[in-house]
């Protein structure tokens, strides 16, 4: 009995040391990682809508919705003129074939897609993974949310060869998120005509 207790305590000691090291490294690196992530997100947004300033809006979704209970989108306003809205930026996410596909997208004030970029995916290389290419993103430029459906579902997005599921995940996540963002923008416009940045 004593022997096994001793083993347990030795293992505990190893775990305590390991946890302490991890906690220390985490406390040192976390601020830096968060900062880098923020900068990367800013850069991605600046690529989608150049020469703009961004302010974020948080939408709280009703409980039980399929996506997390809040959604953040960004209002892009012209630099130095916070009243002229250039468009909106949001991220959309849906499970594709083998991973969560995360897309960042920009829409203009008529909810037409300006550009998209798949920022996170681990789909099949050579098939679904091609969704992070520029030619895939180009397909979405200028599409209205009503046309945002894969061609097999009656829309205007041409499914990639051998990767209909990935294409569908991107397309549907964009369409669904645009609908949520649009509802919020329109309700804001009705209640307070001047959207504060």
């Amino acid at each position, binding site marked *: 009995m004593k022997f096994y207790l001793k083993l347990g305590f030795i*293992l505990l000691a190893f775990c305590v040391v390991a946890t302490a090291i991890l906690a220390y490294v985490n406390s040192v690196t976390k601020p830096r990682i968060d900062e880098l992530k923020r900068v990367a997100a800013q850069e991605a947004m600046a690529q989608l809508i150049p020469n703009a300033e961004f302010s974020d809006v948080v939408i709280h979704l009703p409980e039980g919705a399929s996506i997390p209970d809040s959604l953040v989108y960004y209002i892009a306003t012209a630099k130095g003129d916070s009243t002229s809205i250039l468009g909106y930026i949001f991220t959309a996410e849906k499970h594709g074939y083998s991973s969560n596909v995360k897309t960042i997208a920009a829409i203009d004030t008529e909810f037409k897609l300006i550009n998209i970029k798949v920022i996170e995916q681990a789909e099949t290389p050579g098939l679904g993974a091609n969704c992070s290419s520029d030619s895939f993103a180009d397909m979405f430029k200028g599409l209205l949310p009503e046309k945002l459906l894969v061609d097999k579902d009656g829309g205007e997005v041409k499914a990639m060869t051998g990767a209909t599921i990935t294409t569908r995940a991107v397309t549907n996540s964009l369409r669904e998120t645009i609908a949520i963002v649009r509802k919020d923008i329109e309700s804001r416009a009705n209640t307070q005509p001047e959207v504060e940045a």
Partner: protein
Amino acid sequence: MSFFKELTKGIIKENPTFVIVLGMCPTLATSTSVNNAIGMGIAATFVLVCSNIMISLIKNITPDKIRIPVYVVVIAAFVSVVDMAMAAYIPDLHKSLGLFIPLIVVNCIILGRAEAFANKNNVLNSMADGIGMGLGFTLSLSVVATIRELLGNGTWLGIRILPQSYNPMLIAILAPGAFFTLGFLMAAINMLKEKR
């Protein structure tokens, strides 16, 4: 055994993938392109060398009965530290290798070498073993990936080798292609061995 012998045995004679048949899961998952294979190989080699050194250092204070859980703790902690440090200080490298880092924890080559080598040998030899095994792993991953990328995409390291008119054999990139390639390569290696 000499330092040099430990260093070279992992490359062919005791190749972790083809001869010891360790680390099949990352082999199948990351050999879809040469780029991925080299990334995984480098990341795994780095962790392997460091974990071999660590385990060789603590081998005298680790009770035999609980050595495996202790190794798992050491390896997992080490991988997390590497992951966080890379994300904070070399974000570019982390972007390309980051995907593979969590996969390293489940890479049984690392636990396998800790158990089979590092807990019986001194620090210097353990380091050599880690480097050799890591290089062997990288090499075999690259061989599998070369075949799969060439057949499945017509490219090597992203450079187009086969003409545009070549219709890619998609199965080579999908999971079954990994099994086919691995099976044929192992058969070829065994045939060569028997002939000798």
